[in-house]
């Protein structure tokens, strides 16, 4: 049982991210790579993810403003976004990316737009929660080992 209140808070936040389905096993893999020589590795990777994903989201937004929709292009962008999101274990974001791609394949423009709105919500939620998590993590200091969610 973690005695340090900040670390307890961190553990609670972390558990919640997994329990609510925002993160999957891939995030644990990132944590396992972090060590004393690279104590901020996970946050650095996630920060790179934000940069990657912001660019792709903008590309998709611009593509959705052009009519008729280029579904192949939209699908390609979302494929990139899904790949990126998978790399940090962004489970809900990845799931919504799959929904969007299905709409692209069935040439359903309305579906694409609805799905994209939902995806942006999931992304914003994840980003907000991770930013809060890393803020607490920085204050709490280095954790000893990554532990797998139950």
């Amino acid at each position, binding site marked *: 049982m973690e005695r340090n209140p900040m670390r307890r808070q961190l553990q609670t936040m972390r558990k919640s991210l997994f329990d609510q389905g925002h993160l999957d*096993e*891939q995030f*644990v*893999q*990132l944590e*396992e*790579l972090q060590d004393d020589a*690279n104590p901020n*590795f996970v946050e*650095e*990777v996630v920060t*790179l*993810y934000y*940069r*990657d994903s912001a660019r792709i989201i903008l590309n998709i937004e611009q593509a959705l403003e052009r009519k008729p929709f280029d579904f192949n292009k939209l699908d390609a962008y979302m*494929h*990139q976004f*899904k*790949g*990126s999101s*998978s*790399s*940090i274990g962004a489970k809900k974001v990845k799931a919504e990316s799959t929904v969007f791609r299905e709409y692209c394949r069935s040439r359903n423009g309305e579906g694409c737009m609805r799905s994209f709105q939902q995806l942006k919500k999931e992304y914003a939620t994840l980003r907000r929660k991770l930013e809060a998590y890393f803020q607490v993590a920085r204050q709490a200091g280095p954790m000893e080992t990554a532990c797998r969610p139950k």
Partner: protein
Amino acid sequence: MVSGNSASSSSLSMKSDEDIVNNNNNLRVLVVDDSPMIRKLHDMYLKKFGLKVQVAENGKQAVDLFHFGASFDLILMDKEMPIMDGEEATKELRTMGVTSMIVGVTSLDSPNEKQAFMEAGLDYFFTKPLTTDNISFILQELNKKNNKN
């Protein structure tokens, strides 16, 4: 030729870490990917296994490295990259006579695209992101290949 996808991972145990690192100290890897995030991630994975890692941002940079005399035991090659994609870079490297192990690492999900990428000259293919199990497998195969030569 074998394809694989992300497998469940296992942590590197303290006892096996040292052995693994010592065995891999002389192996050089080139990570070819246009995503800074993926380059960072794979760089870290590979360094944990004691490998010497260099990165390239696209297929052309990878090919140029070989033209300038660089050599690598293993190349991790993304498919979708600007300037020169992974498929073209792989074909080019094989045409140049490069015999390094080339492993495709991509989020492709079309079987035809995967097939075309394999046929360009890959030894193996894995879905992004790589896991420690994938890397263990690759290194085992690389060591087998090096022991045969």
